């Protein structure tokens, strides 16, 4: 029992694991990785994509019968660009330091393949409520990967989570640092995000062997 039917619930649950946009559909990787050095930036990016994808899916779905097929890519681009401008301005107004960290990657949400991919694959053929759920589901799947990567990178790279020192103080040598533990500075470098995603894919495909690629 819930306010969603079984089909609708599937729209949200599937992209979380089995049909994850990053690890299975291989979309949306660009803007995902470079900003995951801090957990806070990952969460904000995930929420931004959720807003753009959710609202965008609804708008495109409402317009789906009036968009001429030849210019549909342009219409989609305009809708996404407008939504991203809103997100960018809101971030600049309410979270200025974070918008500096995210810098051009907020703008790159426009070219985030997940958004155009879901517009083409779902919003153009389905009603607004289901498109909204699909948008939320896919952005949750995207957000999950971002948060996992951000979690490990920030925890192992700087010993903090969301800015709170959870492993003790590295300068005062309290907590884990008293036993000689050092932060792994490597984790703060961007290539580690790629390797962590590779490991996530390894775990995911080991648990669900149907996803393994053929030779």
């Amino acid at each position, binding site marked *: 029992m819930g306010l969603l039917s079984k089909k609708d619930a599937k729209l949200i649950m599937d992209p979380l694991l089995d049909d994850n946009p990053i690890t299975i559909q291989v979309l949306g990787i660009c803007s995902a*990785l470079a900003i995951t050095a801090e957990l806070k930036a990952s969460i904000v990016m995930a929420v931004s994509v959720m807003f753009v994808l959710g609202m965008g899916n609804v708008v495109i779905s409402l317009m789906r019968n009036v968009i001429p097929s030849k210019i549909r890519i342009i219409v989609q681009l305009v809708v996404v660009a407008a939504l991203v401008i809103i997100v960018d301005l809101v971030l600049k107004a309410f979270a200025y330091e974070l918008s500096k960290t995210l810098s051009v990657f907020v703008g790159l949400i426009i070219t985030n393949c997940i958004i155009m991919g879901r517009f083409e694959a779902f919003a153009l053929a389905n009603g607004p409520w289901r498109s909204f759920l699909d948008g939320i589901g896919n952005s949750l799947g995207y957000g999950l990967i971002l948060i996992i990567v951000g979690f490990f990178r920030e925890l192992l790279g700087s010993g903090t989570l969301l800015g709170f020192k959870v492993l003790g103080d590295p300068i005062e040598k309290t907590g884990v640092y008293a036993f000689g533990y050092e932060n792994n500075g490597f984790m703060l470098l961007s290539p580690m995000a790629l390797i962590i995603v590779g490991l996530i894919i390894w775990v995911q495909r080991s648990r669900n062997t149907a996803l393994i690629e053929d030779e």
Partner: protein
Amino acid sequence: MEHLELFFKSIFIDNMVFATFLGMCSYLAVSKKVSTAVGLGAAVIFVLAVTVPLNWLLDQYILKPDALVWLDGNSATPKLSAYYGYDLSFLSFILFIATIATMVQLVEIIVEKFSPSLYNSLGIFLPLIAVNCAILGGSLFMQSREIQSIGLALNYGISSGIGWFLAIVAIAAIREKIRYSNVPAPLRGLGITFIITGLMAIGFMSFGGMLTTDGKKEESNTETTEAKIEVLKQEQSESTQIVEVSKITKQ
């Protein structure tokens, strides 16, 4: 000199794929064969070379704060213009993506007319370049790094494209080679590509020391030695003066 520095910096140090992960989707999708990778890489270089300078012009004359002062002829005295204080930079995203989509459409028409075989081999990828993060990323980084002239913008566009081309050809070659390796089944295909790209990115970080201020260090060295020589000369002249004075006083 600035051009040469920007050129090498954009290819190796700020490589679009390995430093900022732009264009990863098509990078992963197209890199199964070297021949398609070369084709797509060449298309990306061309589109970047065309769109970055165009967007620079847009940014310079329309989007930047106070950019519109040329409209009523007050470029020399911006404060007198009616357009002083106008800041249209929030329209950057829409205008940049519009120019990119237009240019890609144009490139597609031209390629179809002049080289149908290339058009056929690129297939769906040519229109897909319009939404490639690398293209929009090139323009956005050009804007955020405040590139100063159109020549530098062209330089930046071409060199970023060459960097992307280098990355995709390298990963395609590696993927062709590891087809016969013993990769664990869950890692096959996508997983191992991610890990290899991560390792390549770490390798490219070694280029970070390439353009440190070596030239400037030498300059400052010569400066200090020149200063030292001057000080010594001064001391010398002072000491000769003292000697003369003492000679005079002796007498």
